[in-house]
């Protein structure tokens, strides 16, 4: 028997050995890095960790702000008390302090009864969308609300109300139904404007909504970081 087959088979063996081990290595690496292969558990863990970190950071911010306000409230000589007052006003306007006053509290929730009775129907018709909250908040602003919060999230100038899949983000915090929208302002005025607007539409489509007027509504301070990295005041002579 001739040995002419030896060399070609050896060549093919080298190549296939190379491919085999290479492929094995690639697959082993893939399993570690491909998020889909681990059913996104890594991503979920990442999100949870980051949210935990955000909470910790917010606590630190709150502590620092408390220290700061203690320092600011010391009795001061000269015309500094006047500046102190201005600073306080500015903080209230910016939403960096908790505020209390007359106002209304609206609660809205998913129409789960309606969905139960019509299981074949599109569930989108029965859940609260970010647009509902956005409309109510806009109406409250039209009604001269001085401070608004949704589920404890103070709305300030840079607050977003945004749909991300099946949750709603406000101040980059995930919030879920039922939604409690608190507003400080003239209770009568505010109640009138929302009951003639979005709240009425929601009632007519059988969403469970409530509206209560209170003498004392407490609205918490904005908890997160508030920095202007790009915007700078325009100088007088530039205008």
């Amino acid at each position, binding site marked *: *028997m001739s*040995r*002419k*087959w*030896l*060399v*070609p*088979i*050896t*060549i*093919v*063996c*080298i*190549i*296939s*050995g*190379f*491919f*085999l*081990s*290479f*492929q*094995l*290595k*690639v*697959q082993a690496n*893939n399993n570690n890095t*491909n998020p889909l292969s681990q059913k996104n558990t890594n991503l979920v863990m990442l999100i949870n960790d980051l949210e935990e970190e955000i909470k910790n950071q917010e606590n630190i911010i709150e502590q620092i702000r408390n220290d700061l306000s203690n320092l600011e409230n010391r009795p001061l000589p000269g015309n500094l008390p006047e500046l102190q007052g201005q600073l306080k006003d500015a903080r209230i306007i910016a939403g960096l302090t908790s505020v209390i006053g007359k106002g209304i509290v609206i609660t809205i929730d998913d129409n789960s009864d309606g969905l139960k009775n019509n299981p074949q129907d599109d569930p989108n018709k029965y859940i609260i969308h970010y647009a509902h909250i956005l409309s109510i908040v806009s109406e409250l602003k039209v009604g001269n609300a001085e401070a608004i919060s949704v589920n404890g999230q103070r709305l300030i100038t840079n607050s977003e109300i945004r749909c991300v899949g099946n949750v709603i983000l406000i101040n980059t915090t995930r919030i879920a139904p039922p939604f409690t929208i608190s507003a400080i302002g003239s209770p009568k005025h505010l109640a009138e404007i929302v009951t003639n607007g979005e709240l009425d539409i929601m009632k007519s489509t059988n969403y469970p909504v409530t509206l209560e007027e209170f003498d004392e509504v407490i609205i918490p301070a904005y908890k997160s970081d508030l920095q202007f990295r790009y915007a700078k005041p325009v100088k007088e002579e530039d205008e």
Partner: protein
Amino acid sequence: MWVLPVFGLLIGIVLGSTLTFQIPLIYVKYMSIAVLASLDSVFGGIRSVLEERFDGTVLLSGFFTNALLAALLAYLGDRLGVDLYYAAVFAFGVRLFQNLAAIRHKLLLQYRSKKNRQLR
């Protein structure tokens, strides 16, 4: 006489595990086809040796054209939205099993005929 191919296989494995270059995830699919094609050639070669109809040129050309064509077809399938990749995997897989079965048959027959000769 089987030492050289086994040695070659070992060399290939060592080469493959020491060489580190990243190939993009998209091409991992084509790599797996190449693996199947090379395995198919190895077993096909062994089979043809046992059946005493071995031809080195046929083996090597078959290996390269099969691997290239399979990769091309898989690529074309990707472009067209048809999973031709699975067809290539299926074809190579079936051939692998057929070759293995033929090798086993041949070896068994050889073993038996040897035994018979010894008995006589």
